[in-house]
């Protein structure tokens, strides 16, 4: 495919004098100046006071969650550690002599669970892969710290930040999904 050369319209004398450009430039700048300086409606937000409304499905920082009985949901299966692309997650399993899980329907919980937020790319694979639905990408987007060590979030901190993920009971929605799939829609062909 060859390049098509488009003829430019030759400028008239009036246009060549730069005056129309000046006027239109003044018009545009004045419009914006009026909006933000005189009417006081700039497009930007003043961050710490006004906060952005995070949309549904936003992928923020991954935190561990607890179930409705305030028990740790994570069972230290290490699937997330395995799947994590930047290797941001590090789980220390409890080991043979470790403490048992604090809920009845689980065998163990992690001795330590660390996410390095400097490495995390917020891809959401950990949430996707978790069989226990124990880790969720939540809506935090402003993670700050004064040192690298501080940005490695430990288990206690992750649980505290994640909070109780209300309403979600283990396997409940899987059951619903399964039930849905039992009723096949019958199409009249």
């Amino acid at each position: 495919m060859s390049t098509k050369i488009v003829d430019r319209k030759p400028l008239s004398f009036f246009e060549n004098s730069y005056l129309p450009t000046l006027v239109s430039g003044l018009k545009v700048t004045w419009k914006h100046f009026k909006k933000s300086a005189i009417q006081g409606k700039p497009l930007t937000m003043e961050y710490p006071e006004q906060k952005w409304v995070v949309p549904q499905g936003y992928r923020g920082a991954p935190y561990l969650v607890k179930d409705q009985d305030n028990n740790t949901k994570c069972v230290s299966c290490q699937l997330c550690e395995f799947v994590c692309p930047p290797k941001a997650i590090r789980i220390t399993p409890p080991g043979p002599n470790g403490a048992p899980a604090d809920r009845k329907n689980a065998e163990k919980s992690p001795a330590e669970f660390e996410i390095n937020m400097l490495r995390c790319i917020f891809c959401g694979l950990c949430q996707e892969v978790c069989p226990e639905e124990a880790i969720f990408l939540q809506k935090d987007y402003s993670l700050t710290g004064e040192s690298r060590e501080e940005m490695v979030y430990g288990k206690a901190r992750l649980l505290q930040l994640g909070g109780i993920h209300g309403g979600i009971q283990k396997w409940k929605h899987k059951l619903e999904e399964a039930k849905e799939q039992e009723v096949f829609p019958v199409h009249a062909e």
Partner: protein
Amino acid sequence: MNVFDYLEPTTQFVIFSAVKIALVFGVTMTFVAYAVLAERKISAWIQDRVGPNRTAPPIAKYLPVIGPILVRLGMFQPMADGLKFLLKEDFTPAYVRKIYFWLAPAIAVIPAFLTLAVIPFGSTLGNPENKMVIADLNVGILYTFGVVSLGVYGIVLAGYASNSKYPFLGGIRSSAQMISYEIAMGMSVVAVFMVVGDLNLGAVIQYQAKYGWMVFHQPLAFVIFLISAFAETNRLPFDLPESESELVGGYHTEYSSMKFALFFLGEYAAMISASAMMVTLFFGGWTLPFISEPASSLLGGLLHIAIFIGKLSVLMVVFIWVRWMLPRFRYDQLMDLGWRRFIPLALGNILATAIVLAFISI
């Protein structure tokens, strides 16, 4: 004042001049700082942003109503900016030509401030002998042009000293640009001085007080002077020496900290002196249509200085505003505008003025 009278006239002159120099320097520095703030604020507003509105020293809390307003307007920002420039790491790359690299920022600043020496920024203060101009030269405008023409060295040397591609290109561009537009600028004011008949800037102001502002006598000269001033101070749309989208930062790519701040200072000081020149040459200096007599009282003198600074501020806003109105010129367009349009136009203006003046004198 009485103690003053006992001193010799020469000593009095020296003391008075020193005070004037110190004051003008101080006021200009403050003005530069707040011009930077104005630039940031107006730019922000034009881009639908808010601009600096946080920086507050501890005392701001104790000012009842005005404190929050000042903080909102960013009035304390320049102090923080200055402090930041002072405290940043002063980095000198290993491959630069050291001596020139260190000298260039200083050379860029000095001419801009020297220009202010001949600007009459007020009429008189106290007694009629105290003229509000540092050096009342009879070749005022020539002095200005001479000093302004030295301003190019700072930029060229910065480009040369950095020993790297982008600054070098910036330096080369700037040397050609400044020489070209100096010619147009000089030619445009010739017409003004033909009308006035004196090179002293005080005489220009006296003339304007009597016959009205020069911008109405010589509109073409004003337009050429204004646009050339944009080119001389490297402001958009003629900021080719530093154009950040083509040359990264142009001549100051390799500079940081206080050395960079000096370039910054030089640019704004040059803008201020260009505005001051325009106020003096075309807008009647410290006069207004109904205030044209040299001040007899202290208050009147201060009022004249205030008028001057007010006019100066308006022109500074024009400088800042135009930055967002027009896109940057291409280099050949810049040269074309300078050599093929402004110089012939200015020459034609001189000719027309001469013909009109000849007819009037007959």
